[in-house]
């Protein structure tokens, strides 16, 4: 017999009757996020990086493509080149800023595309259940079984180098992961009584999904996807490192790591800088995702 008093952690009804109606759910999430110092700091850093990337043509001190064999591998703090120069004498600071454009694009765009495609597939499979669910999820499992790096390299290699190809490859890598999370959350939501009540209203399946299910599913999937951005950036940098993806002389952090590899013994600090940028960006996305997840927790 189902328990008459629901939930193992009873909250006295008396406590749940405030006199003032609170603001909407998303607004309260934003409010809670504002009060989280770590999340706010990360958001600020990311904002700074994005702004720098957008305003790159105006704020770079030097031409990122101008090479000079005389000025090779200048150390950090050299006059005129605050972060030194790379192995072809190009100003590192400018290259990092321009590199941010490509790296951020290659990190965010595939995740956004995968979010849209993956959520659609996952929600439909989760809600419809039965055979459709089985067919869709087992197909996705085939892709999911491969390690992301291997899959990205394989698809990218098959399609050839170039930015748009690697964007596509990365999207394909992340669709199964997001679809899985979406399907799992949708399956849990679909079992609840309010979905039954919605079915009893005579609404069609798509209407129920659109109005009742999506609002409850998008949140957790969004948090998961935000956490994927850092993985995607690293994968994209990895692809460029391997020669798939962005090609020289473009500035991209992963590519820069590759070409500066030989300079590690001469000027390790300069060689590590693109890695530091990748690290900072990934950490900030991860911590921000964590903060959003805590802010979304209604029970706090």
């Amino acid at each position, binding site marked *: *017999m*189902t328990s*008459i*008093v*629901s939930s193992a952690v009873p909250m006295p*009804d*008396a406590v*749940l*009757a*405030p006199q003032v*109606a*609170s603001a909407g*759910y998303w607004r309260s999430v934003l409010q809670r996020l504002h009060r989280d110092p770590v999340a706010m700091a990360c958001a600020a850093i990311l904002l700074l990086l994005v702004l720098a990337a957008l305003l790159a043509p105006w704020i770079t001190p030097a031409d990122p493509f101008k090479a000079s064999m005389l000025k090779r591998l200048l150390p950090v703090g050299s006059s005129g080149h605050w972060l030194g120069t790379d192995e072809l004498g190009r100003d590192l600071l400018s290259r990092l800023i321009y590199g941010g454009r490509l790296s951020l694009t290659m990190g965010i765009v595939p995740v956004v595309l995968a979010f849209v495609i993956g959520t659609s597939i996952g929600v439909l499979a989760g809600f419809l259940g039965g055979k459709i669910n089985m067919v869709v999820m087992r197909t996705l499992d085939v892709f999911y079984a491969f390690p992301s790096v291997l899959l990205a390299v394989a698809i990218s290699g098959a399609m050839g180098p170039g930015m748009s190809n690697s964007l596509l490859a990365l999207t394909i890598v992340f669709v199964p992961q997001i679809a899985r999370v979406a399907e799992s959350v949708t399956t849990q939501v679909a079992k*609840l*009584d*309010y979905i*039954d*009540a*919605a*079915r*009893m*209203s*005579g*609404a*069609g399946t798509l*209407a129920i999904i659109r*109005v*009742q299910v999506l*609002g*409850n599913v998008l949140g957790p999937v969004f948090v998961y996807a935000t956490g994927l951005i850092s993985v995607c950036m690293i994968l994209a940098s990895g692809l460029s490192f391997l020669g798939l993806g962005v090609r020289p002389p473009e500035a991209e952090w992963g590519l820069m790591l590759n070409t500066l590899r030989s300079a590690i013994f001469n000027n390790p600090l300069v060689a590590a800088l693109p890695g530091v940028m990748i690290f900072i960006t990934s950490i900030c996305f991860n911590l921000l995702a964590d903060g959003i997840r805590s802010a979304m927790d*209604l029970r706090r």
Partner: protein
Amino acid sequence: MPPYERLLIPMPPVTQLVRSPDRGGPVQPLLSVRNLVKHFPVRDGFLARTKRAVHAVDDVSFDVAKGETLGIVGESGCGKSTTARLIARLMLPDSGGLLFDGDGVDEFGGMSLQEYRRNLQMVFQDSFASLNPRMTMEDTISFGPREHGVGRQQARTRARALLDRVGLRPAQFAQRYPHELSGGQRQRVNIARALALEPRLLILDEAVAALDKSVQAQVLNLLQELKTEQGLTYIFISHDLHVVQYLCDRVMVMYLGQVVEVGPVAQIYSAARHPYTRALLSAVPSMDPARRTSKPPLSGDPPNPINPPSGCRFRDRCPHAEAVCASAAPLLHGQGNAAHLAACHMTMAGSGHSAAPALEIHV
């Protein structure tokens, strides 16, 4: 909360949502359930010799008359909640049919599922799980009408009028979320939502079970008022025999997926014919400290509906069981009283049970 003052705005007429007209008159039952069967297979493993099944509902038939409140009582495993879901078409039966005011439902011709949904609504036990945590009360209530074509503004007005009717001031409650309401308030919203489509039949599946007693009394009063006001018919599923006696006109007792007794409430409570019903009635704790219960009427737990016993399913726990109870399943019958039926060999003449009345043979 002080007694609510009704809004002076009357319920606005909804051009598209009108309660379906009565067909067939007062004699025709509003709902006829015939031979419903639902078994859930038990996954015993690939190489299991016999496939076991949970006999949740086994050949259940009953009628619900227009304007009455039918109570369905029973313990865990009796199948009352499954029956409710089968009637609501949230689950499809393995076999059996439904007639709503004379019309077959869905695959039996007559009424489309959408139309049926407008005529029959359900209020669930868990008031919190029944409400979408991301939607305001107003949105929740107007969802149904909007899906049936009612305009947005009109649906909103209607939702507010319904909130007011169930005792929640719209100015205060329309924009709230479920976690900001108490259990009683949430259940009122569920009732308002059920009424939004102007149904004729309302299934209340343990709707007041999870509420505090004082709140329960308020909600029961509300249900009675709404029933008289809007000419509704109720199916009230509950385990609380006192509430069933208070609210219902007829009572149906279920055990292990079958109907064991059905009849008018006064007769069931004063002269029950099935030993299980009698045991259930005497299991209610006494309210008089001078006359406490000394012996439990039944021992053991309600059995598992997986592979029920042969013959009468109650014979394992029945103090009057005999050989005939194991070999033949008793049928629902009324001994001369067509309104009060029981499925027990002891009450059927000529069944072979030692306590059965003698068969009258007219020459």
